[in-house]
């Protein structure tokens, strides 16, 4: 009897606490600085080209094999604008398969890839799963537009 | 007030109860499943009750014996159903059938 009353008292007390709910679509709460959404490629503002040299290190290290990297000679290297001899030509990451393990970021020697830590990295629902395969443009777009969180770890 | 009973003659009730009773008789005689037989018995009992009440109301409303009787009938019928169904269940468990034809033999 006493325990039963205690349970009743419990729920009654809780009814007067403030609800903990976040009203998500209206309010985006602060996301953790280290948040690992999906890997994105970073843009080298200085040389106006991606950091990525297409070295395949991340591709080989990825446990789920969701990356495809194609490398090419850097045209800017020939003109001397950039020190990178090779540069990324095509880059695909299948966000539908990526398990967000951060390994690609860790193995990259050029700090060319980072885990997105903005909400844009989480709102990626698609009607078709092939749309989840991100190509180079999409992977670079956020960094190019300068919308990367300064705390991004690369 | 008269209008009500003037509308329906007593015979109506009697015919109805008679028909109900006969349907019950038919059911008792023709049904094989013991539970259905019991249901038919219920029909017959109800026919009797209708008769009782009709007579009580039409002929001797101040005595209302018929109504009291009907209450008793209902009570006894309830007891009967409970008991009879117990027997049927028992028979069913032992013989694997609830058909009256097959259990009519008292031997096994």
């Amino acid at each position: 009897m006493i325990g039963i009353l205690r349970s009743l008292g419990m729920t009654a007390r809780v009814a007067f606490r403030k609800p903990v709910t976040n009203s998500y679509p209206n309010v985006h709460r602060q996301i953790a600085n280290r948040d690992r959404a999906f890997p994105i490629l970073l843009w080298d503002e200085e040389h106006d080209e991606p950091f990525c040299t297409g070295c395949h290190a991340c591709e080989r290290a990825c446990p789920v094999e969701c990356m495809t990297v194609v490398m090419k000679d850097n045209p800017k290297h020939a003109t001397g604008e950039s020190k990178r001899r090779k540069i990324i030509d095509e880059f695909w990451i299948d966000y539908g398969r990526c398990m967000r393990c951060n390994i690609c970021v860790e193995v990259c020697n050029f700090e060319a890839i980072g885990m997105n830590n903005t909400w844009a990295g989480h709102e990626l629902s698609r009607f078709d799963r092939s749309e989840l395969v991100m190509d180079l443009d999409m992977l670079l777009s956020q960094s190019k537009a300068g919308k990367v969180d300064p705390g991004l770890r690369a | 007030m008269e209008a009500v009973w003037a509308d329906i003659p007593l015979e109506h009730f009697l015919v109805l109860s008679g028909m109900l009773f006969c349907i019950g008789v038919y059911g008792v005689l023709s049904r094989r499943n013991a539970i259905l037989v019991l249901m038919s018995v219920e029909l017959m009992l109800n026919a009797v009750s209708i008769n009782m009440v009709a007579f009580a109301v039409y002929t001797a409303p101040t005595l209302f014996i018929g109504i009291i009787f009907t209450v008793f009938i209902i009570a006894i019928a309830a007891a009967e159903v409970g008991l009879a169904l117990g027997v049927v269940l028992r028979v069913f468990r032992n013989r694997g059938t609830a058909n009256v034809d097959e259990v009519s033999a008292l031997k096994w």
Partner: protein
Amino acid sequence: MEPVAETTTTPSTPETPPAAPQREQTGIEREQERLTPVPFVPGKSFYRQVLPGIISVPADAVLAVSRKSSLWPMTFGLACCAIEMIATFMAHNDLDRLGIVPWPSPRQSDVMIVSGTVTKKMAPAVKLLYEQMPNPKWVIAMGACATNGGPYSRYDRVMQGVDKIIPVDVYVPGCPPRPEGLIDGFLALQAKIMEERSI
């Protein structure tokens, strides 16, 4: 009372056992049967066949709004993603805000959230549950595993995506997606319902 809304044909006699297969199926045949996709059978509403467009178009809109505002998913947790799915239903994210409450039976649900790895052993169950859901129905593939096998795609007993067996409407990437990601998936589904009103 007439059974007015019959949706199925004559009931089979309940006591007859299903006809036994003539010969033992081989493993490959069983596997193929297990992996044949469920066809999407769109039902036709009676009102859109008889009513003129001027009435049935606003009716469509009203129904679509009501459908999108009360999407009831089936409680169907498969693997790790299920934890995040549950978290989405719980106090912090509270899908009830959007009118989304889970029901245990497929009969009362509109959405199936495939939250996790679908193995080939599980595939028939998923298909059956999908078939048992009444029209109109939708499927959300939550997480990498449901989308294309995810981390386990290299293992051959894992379905390479649940869309191999049932039609999927929304894919939510992530392993697991955040609760907000799932809510985003629901919002996308709502948009989709409003777009394709005709059921």
